[in-house]
C-alpha cells in the first residue's frame, strides 16, 4: 500500500437528476493503491453509484447533478471519457447477463483487447491467461455464452475485463452467483496484487475495489469503506471497521459471525476475532470450555419438521439440453425423496444441475428419463394449474415477473389464475401481504420498491396460492444483510408454523447451516450427498471433495472439537462456549 491513492474523490455530491434524491453528499475518500478495498453498505445506499464514479461513468456517461472532483493517478475523471481510461481501470458491473457481447467464449474475452487495438497474437495469450484466472479453461471455448450457467457467465465477464489487464479492477458484487470454491478462487486472484509493471506477466490488477454483501469477503480485504446515509460512515482496515458491531448494524451491514459470538461472550472490542484461527487462540487464552453436547439435533433455526409423508419422489431422473453439438446432460440418474414439511438446501458448484433439478420438480421441464411423482401420482398427470397451485417457485430475480400497477394486483395474479376470485381472493392477498409485512404498501407501484421488497412481493404472490411446497432459486441475491436476515426468518417461520415444504438453491453456506436440517449436494448432474446438514459440515473431506466451504462458526467448532458434531449457528456456538455474559 502506498501513500499515493489509486483513485481519490473530493467533496463529491451526486443525484441522478434535478428532482431525484441526493445519493451521495460531500463524499471524500481515497482508494489505496496496491490493495483490495471493499465497499459495504445497505442496498440502495449508493454503493453502485460510488463505483460508477471510480471509472468516470459518472459524470461522463451518466451526467446527473454532479459536483466535486475525481482523480485517478493524475487523470481528471470528471472530464475524461470512460472508454479512454478502460485500459487502466476495468469494471465489472453487477448484471452480468447484460455485459456479454460475444457469440463464443473466445470472442467474448477478445472483445476488450480488440477495442484497445491489441495485436491478435497477443490477444491469444491474453485469452489463455484470462480464462485460467477465471477458472473457465475446462470449457469448450466455442460455446456461446448464453449456454453457460449463471456463475460461469459471471466468471466470463470477469475474464473479459481481466484480458484488458487493467491496473485497477472495479467489481460490483462479483461473487453473487459464484459457488464457494469459485468465490474463493476469484478472491485469491484479486488478492494476488502485484506491485509493478502490470503490462508484463500480468497476474492480476494492482488495485481492486469491490462491492459485496458477503461479510467473509470483507474480512479478507485490506481496506473497508462503509457507506451509510449518503456518506462514508467508516473507513479503515477490517480489524477496525468490522469489530464495531453496533455501527455495522446501523449501516445494515452483516456483522462477522465470530464478532457476534465473542461480543456476546463478553470479549472487549479490540480483541474480537475475525477469523476462526484467531478465535481458537482466544478461546484458549480466555479459558473458554467448548461443550458440543449442548447442541440440538436439527437445524439451529428449528426448521424442517420430519412428517414422514412423501411429497416428491424422483427416480432415475435425467435431463439434457439440446445444443448444435452433443446434448449437455444437466441432471442424470437422480433419486430423491422429499417429505412434507422438510427444509432442504440444494447446493453444488456452478453448472452442477441445481436449477435444472428444481425446474424438473416444478414441472417447468420434463425429464428425458425417469419419473417425478407428486403426492404419489406422476407429475405429468396433474394439470398445469393444479401443479402450479401446489408448488410455488420463487425465481432469483423478481423483476422477471413483476408487471402489475399495484402490489395488490401483482400478488393477486397467481391465485386469480388458479381460479380464486371475489372475497376469497382478497383475503388471500391480504393474508400473504401481512405475512411478508408489506400490507402497508399494497397500493404502491411494485417497480418503486427496493429489491428486498420486490423479492417479498414475488414471495407473497406465491404464498397467496397456499402451496404445499415452495422452491427458491437463490432468493437472497442482491439483498443486504438486514433484508437477507428478514427474508430467511420469514421463510423459516413459514416452514416451522405453516408446515411449508422448502427446497432452496443457495451458495450461502451460513444460510444452509442455520436453516436447513437436510442438504442435497449436486455434482455434474448427480446427487452426491443427501443427508443431515450437520453430518455434511462435520466432514471436511466431503466438503473439500465437492468444493464446499463450512461457515466460520462451524470451522471454529471443528477446530475446538474435531470429532463432535459441529455448531451450525452463532447462537449454538455461544451456548456451547458457556452462554452469553
Amino acid at each position, binding site marked *: 500500500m502506498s501513500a499515493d491513492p489509486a483513485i481519490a474523490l473530493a467533496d463529491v455530491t451526486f443525484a441522478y437528476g434535478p428532482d431525484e434524491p441526493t445519493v451521495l453528499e460531500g463524499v471524500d475518500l481515497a482508494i489505496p493503491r496496491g490493495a483490495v478495498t471493499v465497499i459495504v453498505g445497505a442496498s440502495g445506499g449508493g454503493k453502485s453509484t460510488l463505483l460508477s464514479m471510480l471509472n468516470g461513468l459518472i459524470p461522463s456517461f451518466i451526467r446527473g447533478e454532479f459536483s466535486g472532483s475525481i482523480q485517478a493517478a493524475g487523470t481528471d475523471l470528471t472530464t475524461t471519457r470512460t472508454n*479512454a481510461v*478502460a485500459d487502466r481501470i476495468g469494471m465489472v458491473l453487477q448484471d452480468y447477463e447484460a455485459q456479454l457481447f460475444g*457469440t463464443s467464449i473466445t470472442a467474448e474475452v477478445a472483445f*476488450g483487447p480488440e477495442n484497445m*487495438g491489441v495485436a491478435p497474437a497477443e490477444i491469444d495469450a491474453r485469452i489463455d491467461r484470462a480464462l485460467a484466472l477465471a477458472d473457465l479453461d475446462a470449457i469448450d471455448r466455442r460455446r456461446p455464452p*448464453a449456454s453457460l450457467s449463471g456463475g460461469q457467465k459471471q466468471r466470463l465477464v470477469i475474464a473479459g475485463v481481466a484480458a484488458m489487464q487493467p491496473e485497477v479492477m472495479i467489481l460490483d458484487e462479483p461473487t453473487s452467483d459464484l459457488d464457494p470454491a469459485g468465490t474463493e478462487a476469484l478472491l485469491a486472484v484479486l488478492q494476488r496484487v502485484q506491485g509493478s509493471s502490470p503490462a508484463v506477466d500480468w497476474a492480476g490488477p494492482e488495485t481492486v475495489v469491490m462491492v459485496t454483501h458477503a461479510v467473509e469477503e470483507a474480512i479478507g480485504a485490506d481496506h473497508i469503506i462503509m457507506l451509510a446515509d449518503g456518506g462514508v460512515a467508516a473507513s479503515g482496515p477490517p480489524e477496525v471497521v468490522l469489530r464495531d458491531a453496533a455501527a455495522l448494524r446501523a449501516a445494515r451491514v452483516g456483522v462477522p459471525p465470530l464478532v457476534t459470538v465473542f461480543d456476546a461472550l463478553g470479549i472487549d472490542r479490540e480483541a474480537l476475532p475475525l477469523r476462526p484461527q484467531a478465535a481458537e487462540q482466544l478461546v484458549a487464552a480466555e479459558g473458554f470450555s467448548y461443550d458440543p453436547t449442548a447442541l440440538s439435533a436439527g437445524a439451529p433455526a428449528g426448521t424442517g419438521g420430519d412428517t414422514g409423508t412423501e411429497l416428491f419422489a424422483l427416480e432415475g431422473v435425467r435431463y439434457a439440453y439440446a445444443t448444435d453439438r452433443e446434448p449437455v446432460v444437466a441432471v442424470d440418474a437422480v433419486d430423491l425423496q422429499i417429505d412434507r414439511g422438510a427444509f432442504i438446501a440444494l447446493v453444488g458448484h456452478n453448472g452442477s444441475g441445481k436449477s435444472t433439478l428444481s425446474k424438473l420438480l416444478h414441472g417447468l421441464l420434463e425429464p428425458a428419463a425417469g419419473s417425478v411423482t407428486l403426492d404419489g401420482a406422476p407429475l405429468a398427470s396433474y394439470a398445469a*394449474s393444479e401443479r402450479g397451485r401446489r408448488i410455488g*417457485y420463487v425465481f432469483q430475480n423478481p423483476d422477471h*415477473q413483476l408487471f402489475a400497477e399495484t402490489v395488490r394486483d401483482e400478488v393477486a395474479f397467481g391465485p386469480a389464475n388458479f381460479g380464486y376470485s371475489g372475497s376469497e381472493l382478497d383475503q388471500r392477498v391480504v393474508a400473504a401481504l401481512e405475512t411478508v409485512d408489506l400490507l402497508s404498501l399494497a397500493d404502491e407501484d411494485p417497480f418503486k420498491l427496493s429489491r428486498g421488497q420486490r423479492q417479498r412481493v414475488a414471495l407473497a404472490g406465491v404464498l397467496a396460492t397456499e402451496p404445499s411446497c415452495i422452491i427458491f432459486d437463490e432468493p437472497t441475491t442482491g439483498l443486504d444483510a438486514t433484508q437477507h436476515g428478514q427474508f430467511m426468518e420469514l421463510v423459516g417461520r413459514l416452514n416451522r408454523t405453516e408446515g411449508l415444504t422448502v427446497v432452496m438453491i443457495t451458495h450461502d453456506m451460513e444460510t444452509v447451516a442455520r436453516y436447513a436440517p437436510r442438504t442435497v449436494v449436486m455434482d455434474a448432474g448427480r446427487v452426491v450427498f443427501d443427508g443431515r446438514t450437520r453430518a455434511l459440515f462435520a466432514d471436511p473431506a466431503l466438503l473439500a471433495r465437492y468444493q464446499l466451504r463450512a461457515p466460520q462458526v462451524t470451522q471454529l467448532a471443528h477446530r475446538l472439537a474435531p470429532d463432535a458434531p459441529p455448531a451450525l449457528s452463532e447462537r449454538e456456538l455461544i451456548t456451547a462456549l458457556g452462554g452469553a455474559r
Partner: protein
Amino acid sequence: MSQAYAPFVDRDTIVHRLDPRAKLVGISALFVLAYVFSNPLVIAVPALMALALVLSVGGYRNLRRVRVIVLALFVVGFVVWPVFLAPGGAVLVAVGPVVLTEREVYIALGRSLRIVTFILGGLVFVSTTTTEELVRGLRQLGVPYPICFAVGTALRLFPTFIGAAGTVRQAQAARGADVGGGSIRERLRGFIPLLIPVFMTAFRNIQTQSMALEARGFDPMGGRSFYGDLRFQRRDWLLTLASFGVMGLATLAAVQGLGRI
C-alpha cells in the same frame, strides 16, 4: 443454461469455414441464378441447391422457424400472380371460379421459388456465420465500423430478448399464467404479464450494456484490432471466381433468351 436461440449453428462444416465475404459472393450467385431466369424448372436448381446447403450445415432448426413463411409464399403466389397476369396456354386447374392456365401456374411457381431461394440463401449465411465474422467481413468490405457494430448489436440483442422472454415465460407459467386460448382481447391481456417484464428487463439490459461497452473501452470511432483468423484462402478465391463465372454466364444466357417461359 438455455437452449440455442441464435440462428448461428455451431458446427464445423466447409461452409462455416469459408470467409464471410466469399460466402456472400457464393450466395449472391444463387440469387442471380434465381433472378435472371423465369422458368420455374430452371429456378428450381438454385432453390434446391440452397435447400441442400441449409440442411447440410445443420440449419434444419432455422428452416423450421421459417416454414410457415415459405408455405405462405407459395399459397399467396398462386392467388396473387394470376390476378395480374394474362392467361395463356392450356388450363391446368379448373375448380369452380378458379381457373389457372399453364402460363399463370408457371410464373407463380417461378416467382415463389425465386423468393424462397433468397430466404434459403439468407438462412445458409446466418446459420454458418457468427456475428463477429459478419461484423468483420462488413468492415473489410469497407463498411464504416459504427454501422458494422450497429448490425452486430442488433443481431446480438435478438438472443438476449428471446432468452429474457424464456425466463419470464417460465416465471409467469409457474404463477399459472395462460397465454393461449380465449378471445383476441383475452389473449392480448394474457400477453401483458409477459411483455412488461420482458421490456423492463430488455430496457435495463440495454442501459447496462451501454455502460459495460464504455467500461470495456469500446469507441465506435476509434481504431481497433480484430482477433481470429480471417484471411482469404484458396477455397475462398475458388468459390469467388466460380461464383462470378456463374453470374456472368447466367446473365449472358438470360440475355440470349434462355430459361424464359
